[in-house]
């Protein structure tokens, strides 16, 4: 954050943002700080007991580790699917570019709940794929695609791929084609040009997109609940349980502090990558 503020000078129109900042501080930041402060309180005195509980209860840590694992798998898959997709769109004619980008953006208008349930229709035990395979006689019993980690990852990738493709595509269009032509006149072949010029230039946007996808996966709630079949515990579902069912707000708040701290560290990386991109 500080790098952004020091770079951009404070302008006279800054005061126009002040009302929004006040609303955010009172309506959003303050409640969060009060909630997080709860993690240091037990019987109205300052304590680390909630954090000691957290370490001594392997269940909570396992769920956190599981959440990070799902986030890592999702990120890797989004990179592997998203980068070639963005690169491919870049080479299309303007008309097809618009069609492809629209196809990527349109799902944003569909409720996440509907998109999640749609996967049951496609990949469920009696979904299109399994029924076709059964009819063809290729399998004897339905293949269990959903209600496991695979199902959750399909759901998260489906929702998050645009977050990877769109910024990546925007950054790729900004790469100066003349550099590539210059390399070609100097005798470099296409593979060399891609790996030594194009890829390094798009790498900051790729890294920023990856961190964004990773951070967003950490907060997923509906997808693990529906496509995980309750078998894939993730942090948001555990927090819901601790806040609405149990209520152990102190433990919930200490888990949130851990999650927030890790997310802020990741966000610093994100800022670094996006700054590198801007500095280019």
């Amino acid at each position, binding site marked *: 954050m500080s790098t952004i503020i020091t770079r951009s000078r404070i302008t006279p129109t800054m005061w126009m943002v002040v009302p929004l900042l006040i609303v955010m501080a009172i309506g959003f930041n*303050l409640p969060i700080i009060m909630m997080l402060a709860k993690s240091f309180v037990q019987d109205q005195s300052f304590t680390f007991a909630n954090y000691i509980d957290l370490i001594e209860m392997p269940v909570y840590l396992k769920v956190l580790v599981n959440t990070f694992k799902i986030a890592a798998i999702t990120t890797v898959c989004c990179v592997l699917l998203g980068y070639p997709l963005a690169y491919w769109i870049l080479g299309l004619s303007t008309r097809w570019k618009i069609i492809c980008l629209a196809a990527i953006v349109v799902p944003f208008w569909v409720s996440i709940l509907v998109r999640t349930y749609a996967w049951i229709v496609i990949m469920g035990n009696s979904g299109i794929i399994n029924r076709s395979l059964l009819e063809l006689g290729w399998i004897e019993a339905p293949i269990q695609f959903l*209600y496991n980690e695979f199902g959750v990852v399909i759901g998260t990738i489906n929702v998050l791929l645009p977050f990877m493709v769109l910024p990546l595509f925007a950054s790729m269009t900004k790469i100066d084609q003349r550099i590539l032509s210059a390399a070609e006149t100097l005798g470099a072949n296409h593979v060399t040009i891609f790996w030594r010029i194009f890829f390094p230039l798009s790498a900051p946007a790729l890294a920023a997109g990856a961190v964004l996808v990773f951070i967003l996966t950490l907060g997923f709630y509906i997808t693990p609940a529906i496509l995980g079949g*309750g078998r894939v*515990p993730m942090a948001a579902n*555990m927090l819901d349980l601790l806040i609405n069912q149990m209520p152990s*707000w102190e433990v919930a708040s200490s888990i949130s502090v851990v999650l927030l701290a890790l997310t802020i560290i990741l966000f610093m990386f994100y800022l670094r990558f996006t700054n590198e991109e801007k500095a280019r």
Partner: protein
Amino acid sequence: MVSLNRFMSLIKGVTSVSFVVASTMATAQVKEIRILESGGPSGESIEAAYIKPFTAKTGVKVIRESPTSLGKLQAMVQSKNITNVLVELGSTNLFLARATGLLEPLDWDKIDPDPMFPEAKIEDGFGYQYFSTVMAWPQGTKKLNSWADFWNIKDFPGKRALPDYPAYTLPLALLADGVEPEKLYPLDLERAFKSLEKIKDSVAVWWQAGAQPPQLLEDKEVQYAAAWSGRIVDNPKLDYTYQQGLLQVSYFAVPKGVDPAQKAAAMGLLHEMSKAENQIVATQTVPYTGASPDIQDKLPADRLNQYPTSPDNKAIQALADPSWTASNAKELERRWQAFKLGL
């Protein structure tokens, strides 16, 4: 930390001032009360069956808010800003809320209820709705008669769905293992988890929302599910049995620190909820019955056994013990999560 404390006490000051303003306005004359309930068809049944006659009699408007949760109740009581005079709570949550000191006793003299089942009439909770966790399957699938059948994958093949809540699923696991319904509590956790181990590989979905099991059954995602009775009995595509169903009660409770005039008005609404004829109206919106033991005379004989509290059905179900569940909630949840992580 010092500055934070000062800051927080400032905030508390501001909220308590607004609370005083709000409560002095309310005591003048109660014109409306707000209740926090589950929403959906259940909320509509409250509107049609209880709120309508109550407002007609007293002129007090009732505003429904939803969904309810123990977290919302805790937030209300701790911030000393009681926005809802009645809060719907599942039976276990009622006992958890009592243990955390979030509830006020009801004024049963003022409620002056019609006859009620004893488990629905407790110091700080008014049991207004009975629901059961029952076995269900799509029409045309081989019928089940017990949880032992549900656990029997060999003779009743297919995927299962069970609630992702230990308070519901552990008693079912014990019934499946042959424990007598009246000897369920205190739950033998070792035995319950051992029983679950036998079926866990066939459980495709551990569901969290009541809407999930009927959908999973209709889509043939699973062949058998434990589901809430109200979601099943009206569905022509599904079949079910109340045999060995786990009967539970939903309560209305009053948050601690509520304005007395508001509370007095709310007792009148609870009185309407105790009347058998109003409960019958509620069943037209959602197939859950109330705590009246007298519904059988007022319901057509062919519909009577759709409901969990008909004399026939009450006899063949097991009654959950929410007070035991609440006092062991932390342990249940810890072991449940550990079990699920091992899946």
